[in-house]
């Protein structure tokens, strides 16, 4: 019980410190939020630190050996920066596992969910970063492009 309360306190403190990611630039209506697509061992080809949303571009080889060229968006540079992202968090050639909510058009584009790096560490999106498609950071305050 004590541990649980402590965990809750720390979580609250983290969320309060991280703050809101600035209100959403646009909704998630274009994406299939039922289950993220997992791109295991994808190779980052470009990480564009641009507005309104940074873009992660990566190549993913499917079971048949076909290479899919993916593009995914994340929260704004300002809101991503609040939870530790920088323009060099991902680099050309990085091999990572990417989780993405794919567009309903079924094209290889989508809303970024999280990345698992080679060392097992994880970084999430500022919005839609939770595994159920909600925000992973916080609902404290308002914010987010």
């Amino acid at each position, binding site marked *: 019980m004590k541990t649980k309360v402590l965990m809750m306190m720390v979580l609250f403190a983290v969320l309060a410190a991280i703050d809101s990611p600035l209100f959403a630039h646009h909704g998630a209506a274009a994406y299939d939020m039922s289950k993220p697509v997992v791109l295991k061992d994808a190779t980052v080809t470009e990480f564009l630190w641009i507005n309104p949303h940074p873009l992660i571009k990566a190549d993913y080889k499917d079971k048949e050996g076909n290479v899919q060229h993916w593009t995914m968006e994340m929260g704004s540079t300002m*809101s991503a920066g609040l939870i530790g992202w920088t323009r060099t968090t991902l680099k050309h050639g990085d091999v990572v596992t990417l989780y993405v909510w794919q567009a309903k058009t079924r094209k290889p584009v989508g809303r970024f969910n999280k990345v698992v790096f080679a060392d097992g560490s994880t970084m999430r999106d500022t919005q839609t970063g939770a595994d159920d498609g909600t925000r992973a950071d916080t609902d404290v305050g308002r914010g987010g492009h």
Partner: protein
Amino acid sequence: MRKPHTGAIAGVAGVLFLSALAAAQNNAARSPWKYYPMERAIGDGGPAPKRDLTGTWAGPASGAAVPRGRTESPPPLTPLGKQSYERNKPLGKYSPGGTNDPHSRYCDPFGFPQNMTQEIRGLTITTLPNRTFLLLQYMDVWREVWTDGRTLPANVGGTARDSLDPKYNGYSVGHWEDDYTFMVDTTGLAEETWATKSGYPHSVDAHVQERFHRDSKNDLTLTITMDDPKLYTKPFFLGEEHFRWIPNQQLDEFTCIPSQVQQYLKEMGDPAGSDPSAAR
């Protein structure tokens, strides 16, 4: 069963965690040129100075835990207003791939009054003897509010030779209602802009009133209403925004870059498409 000291331990843990976080931030190299959203004014800072809004403020979208305000409350539209409103496809419903919001597609200016409620991040207010300037962080916008006693123009957008052109930020005059409340009246707005991000329109003759209230040294509250009888049957409450004093008075740059938006739409927004029926 919960032990009586559990809460105290949890509280201490929380304080220690925040202290560690603050210490980590303080130990990092500090720059007087950088905006630190985690560095926040403490408390209300004491009484508000009289007739003074000067300074740099963190807005609700600044990442600095500024309290939530109140959002718009649209009144019924006139037939002309309904016609204008139905032409607009807001981003929240249509996604980047389906919206016709000129800002989302081309970085066109929000224009006033939308630029005081949408992406309202940081705000600097500065004053000359005859004018007050409102400098908005997002899109590096500056608004000019005349305080020399002139009245608002009545001939904006007309066909007469002496008519004034509509402007993205309109024509503004301001006065102190009391020692802590600065009122700004604006008209002559460019009609191609939207009054709200949800696509509500305005006419060139809309009269927008802003009420800036200095609640304390560290707190500022803005409420905005619009009266536009051509398009709405009643005055339109556009929102209430709170601002907090920024300790080092420094803001970051944040703007919409047309070439980046075109790249974003080409590679991401347009391929992702639009599903307005799924909008929440």
